[in-house]
């Protein structure tokens, strides 16, 4: 009992000294306050449920965003960008964003694209690499190429907000 108390205290001590404290359940780190709004997703959602169905609903979209996060954090071209970033938060907000845009029944609670990508130092080649990884992930889910492009058409206008220079 004493031991576990001591352990619990020491665990709590570490983050306090090392930096911000993560969420006790998810480990997600806090960010500066901002106004939550679906408009932060950077694109209007599709109408109807055709796209949501094609992407396998929430479950399919979750697989896509999880695999996308695995892909972008392990691709030698762009993995460096995500070192030191809150991957737990990225995994959650990316899912919310895709789910919201695909009209699969989610709200997007993350920051707007410009704030979320500020100071990441991303270049055009990084964005193109991400697009290629996303295309691979969508291929894995057997999503028709025309529907992949329809979805990418929602993301493409965000270029100026997600590329730094």
């Amino acid at each position, binding site marked *: 009992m004493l031991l576990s108390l001591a352990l619990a205290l020491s665990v709590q001590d570490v983050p306090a000294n090392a930096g911000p404290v993560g969420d006790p359940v998810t480990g997600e780190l806090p960010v500066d306050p901002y106004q939550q709004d679906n408009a932060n997703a950077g694109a209007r959602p599709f109408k109807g449920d055709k796209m949501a169905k094609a992407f396998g609903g929430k479950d399919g979209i979750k697989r896509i965003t999880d695999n996308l996060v695995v892909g972008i954090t392990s691709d030698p071209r762009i993995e460096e960008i995500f070192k030191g970033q809150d991957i737990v938060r990225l995994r959650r907000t990316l899912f919310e964003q895709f789910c919201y845009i695909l009209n699969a029944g989610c709200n997007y609670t993350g920051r707007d694209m410009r704030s979320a990508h500020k100071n990441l130092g991303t270049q055009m080649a990084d964005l193109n690499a991400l697009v290629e990884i996303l295309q691979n992930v969508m291929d894995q889910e057997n999503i028709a190429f*025309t529907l992949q492009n329809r979805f990418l058409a929602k993301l493409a206008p965000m270029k100026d907000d997600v590329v730094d220079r």
Partner: protein
Amino acid sequence: MKRTFHLLSVTMAAMITSIAPSAAAEELRQGGKLLLTNGIASVEGSTGGGLASWSLIAGNETRDGIGGSVHATVAEFKDYRLDTEGLAVGFFNRVELSYARQALNTKAIGQALGLGYGYKLNQDIYGAKLRVAGDAVYGDPLMPQIAVGIQHKRNLDSQVTDAVGAAESEGTDFYVSATKLFLSHSILIGATARYTKANQGGLLGFGGDKNNDYGVQFEGSLGYQLSRKLVIGGEYRTKPDNLSIAREDDWYDFFAAYAINRNLTLAAAYVDLGSIATSAEQRGGLISLRASF
């Protein structure tokens, strides 16, 4: 025309030096373009489709690097064969400089004209293109990538261009081009206005007895993206008609462009050039291979 060409080189050099410092401060980054977004080599060596010019810039580079390409194209027609080889350099996905050598093999026509069987008409084409606005894939979905370009053409067979009645053996084309991939429909649309007096692209010289004035011609492209690696489509290109001895027709093609990998793009097309130097119905096949880095 020599002066135009000199002016062109000076202008292009100035453009490159003006954009280079911003990128030179950072480390140059090689590659990074999406597949097929560097197009293929047009018949004049600039980036385009097969017959039409596009506003895309050669090379695999993005705005953060320098890239380039080399290409070879073979087109076989009923009475002619057109071989083109060339190279292009892309600076920061902004400026493209290109050179191409065209050789029109006249096969039996050459013999009939007393030039000898398989006599080749040669032309050098020096091109420069500047992307002035927009992005073919990203940004505003209705805003195309727009480029302005210039092609200085030097026909090396002035005795032939004189014989057919052309006014000059050298000429310069000016064009403005808009290209956009409409992702939501997987459709690529290209439109180019070319200010020119070239006969058969310059292979039969520039201007003629019938007309010796510059005029605006149109080049249109429509493509459908079947996959990341494959685009099929068609192109149409209007032409001047300056020579009284040889009617000139519009050109069109149906093409497929396939990205074998990041460095190699293969294009094949069915091409109809119409009548060339009095020989009608010049239809045939075109194969083009371009290596990009």
